[in-house]
């Protein structure tokens, strides 16, 4: 049985023919669309490396059935830098050394963007740490991650105010 779904991935419409209903959103991105920035660390919703934004919300793409997300808008790490300019969260991760091996980093960054958009943490570092706790980092770059999120959030807020003015 073949299934045909349509997704908007990083702003681009992708019509996908699936010969198999079992394909997860993560495996669709990585193995079929070859968007390999999104990582598979556990494949069971336990590490956060596969975090992407679906319709603006961060989720674990390993526990999302691709078929069930027909029509969804997906943002992955590849879709962040615009016109050769890093997203402020990406830049902040570099400046604060919010990673070492880099494998969990795409998930951390997508999660951070989701966290900032959710607007629940504010500038409370404890809330940021809690809000980022769904992303394991075995290198344990947590300090830099937290600093990067706070810093990027401040910069985004400033940019937002600037835009609004």
């Amino acid at each position, binding site marked *: 049985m073949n299934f045909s779904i349509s997704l908007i991935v990083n702003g681009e419409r992708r019509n996908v023919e699936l010969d198999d209903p079992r394909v997860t959103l993560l495996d669709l991105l990585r193995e079929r669309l070859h968007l390999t920035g999104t990582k598979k660390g556990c494949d069971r919703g336990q590490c956060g490396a596969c975090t992407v934004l679906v319709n603006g919300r961060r989720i674990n793409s390993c526990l999302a059935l691709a078929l069930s997300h027909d029509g969804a808008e997906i943002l992955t790490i590849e879709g962040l830098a615009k016109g050769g300019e890093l997203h402020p969260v990406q830049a902040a991760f570099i400046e604060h050394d919010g990673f070492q091996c880099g494998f969990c980093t795409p998930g951390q960054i997508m999660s951070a963007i989701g966290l900032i958009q959710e607007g629940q943490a504010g500038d409370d570092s404890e809330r940021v740490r809690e809000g980022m706790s769904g992303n394991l980092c075995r290198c*344990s770059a947590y300090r830099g991650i937290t600093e990067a999120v706070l810093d990027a959030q401040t910069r985004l807020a400033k940019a937002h105010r600037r835009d609004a003015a």
Partner: protein
Amino acid sequence: MTLEITPIHASPHIRHGSNAGQPLTRRDGILKVTGAARYAADNNPAGMLYAVLAVSSIARGRVTYLDLDAAKAHPGVVEVMTRANRPPLALDPDAKTTPFSFRFEALQNDLVRYANQPIAVVIGSTLEAATEGAALLAPRYEAEPARTGLDSTESFVPAAVRLISPPEERVGDVEKGLAAAITQVDATYETPAQYHNAMEPHAIVATWEGDALSIDMPTQGLALSQARIAEIFGLAIENVHIRSPFLGGGFGSKGVMSGPMVLGILAARLVGKPVKLVLRRDQMYGPVGHRPPTRQRLRLGMDGEGRLTALHHHAKTVTSTFDDFVEPAAEASHVLYASPAIATTHEASRIDIGTPLFMRAPGEASGSAALEGAIDEAAWACRMDPLEFRLRNYAEVEPISGKPFSSKALRECYAEGARHFGWSARPLEPRQMRDDAGFLVGWGVGTATFPALVFQAKARAVLKRDGTGLVETSAADMGQGAWTALAQLAADSLGLDIDEVEFRAGSSDLPDAGIAGGSAHTATAGTAIHAAGGDVISRLAELATRDERSPLFGAGNAGVLARGGRLFRRDDESRSESYADILARAGLADIEGRGEGARDPNAAEAYAMHSHGAVFAEVKVDPDLGQVRVTRLVGAFAAGRVINPRLVRSQYYGGMIWGVSFALHERAIVDHRSGRVLNADLAEYHIPVNADVPSVEALLIEEDDPYVNPLGIKGVGEIGITGTVGAVANAVWHATGVRVRSIPIRIEDLAMGAEFAG
């Protein structure tokens, strides 16, 4: 491979000066934050098939049946590789060619020797098909009872620990020292089995072209893996090409060729197409190593002033039934504390598990967890401040050997760390501090140590006519920052700015950088780079100083300095010439130099070489509920010359958080009937999350070491774990009065133990 730095403007690549010593941001940073860094499993060559392992659910016995028909009937399954059809190997997987060549399983027989051992490989056109094909094999077994835990089989004194070190070492007479002691401590600590659990599962994409093999695979040692694969498959070394530009963490588990990686190559051979094989998270609990459990008995004697009279550290551990890695846990007592009598002894037993392996600070982590706890107990037995006790027993020379240290700024680490932490306000007695919310607060200290090793490496450096440089070595970046720190050293070695030097690493067709392990990669590969660059510069200087048209003519005796792309006469810096001019005049397109890095055997014979540190921890414990949080961690480390303080701090943070994990979280739960790990995942095998680490700081203590290697670099990757486990556990004792000797400390140990707090 070359790191392709994407030209993104407003690049956040921050510079504060030039090259070594500067806190540059990671040169692979942009690749990593944009998802462009390509890890092994990110490769999808045309025509590639997916291979999935079927693994054993028993820990000992034989595979008697695999439902090949069911697997092959599943749509999309292309082939099932079993013992019957697996292509031949040139080497018996059970042969031992060197102490470091581990035995592995590549379907050589029907035997099962641990749970999660690979027993077949299913190859499919999609990952989904191969995965289900593996499940459909539904193996049957002839099972024998699993032997698990520290006590299920008879123990023995191993021939060697850490593969090559003596299992017993002694200085002085421990029994006499204990008999003469005024105060004694006799404490037994236990540590659990732990799994490396790098975020990146082991993965391989293998492509055969005739007898040439092209591989994407994370490896901590490109040349070692290359040679091992050549040996296993009977190939010429140059016919094996491995790319490993990025490792998604290694921690020791990607240092040796494991069975699953060999099976990936075999699968590609069998089907004649590129094959990708990636371990599932649960499959990482078996064939790719782990840190074995230990039971360690520490016997300490102290005189009336709190000086050690004897220290006996005995470590029991386990290894597999078929190989010989024995965790050198007791060796931690060789280095840290002065005592007229020291004995370190090991025993092991063989059980039905995959062979244990080097795991971040092998030996030192488990060993210092026990030693630092026992030292804390000894301090309390003497009613001394635990930091003062450590200073009282400060080792001026390496205790086990009597050798002087090549450098040792541990005193400064203690002092700076204590000052920064505010240690002097610590009450001696436990259970004295509360925070505003009523939580018990405790402070603990631990001493950190790790050997400063140098392995062997080679590098090639080239100076080009346009004045830019190229430096090559097959270094592996598993997060420690080789792409950056080694590039800094490369630039310095050529007297160029880092942006003028192309640095190539991460590929087996480059000069052998040795292994990224033992916290020695920067020192080892860095020394080779330093030598290669130096070779280029000396050739260049030769050209200039012998050429009467050069302003440097005749400076051979005075010597020249290489800086900023120019050579300067050492005794008169107004006389200089650019590299490009020298090369142009000589009519050369480039100059090539070669360098090697290795330990100076004379220095190693004369000096003990170690990094040191002091870790201070604050914990809060819920007095009724027993939950613990490490609210503050301060580590002060002296590890020779620091090439990039930003990256070094990150290494220390990571190590220290591994220490928190060791003390409070990590533990493989083994079913003692089946031998299976019940929490073979990342949900129940707990490692710290962001919220577990509200505050971690690392202080870099100056240390100049003229002996350890020409660059004065010691290692920083592993030392952070050591000391931290003890600091956290000792802080828990200080908070609660409960001494938990079974690591990790659990909620019930504190909630229930609090009833009996002393």
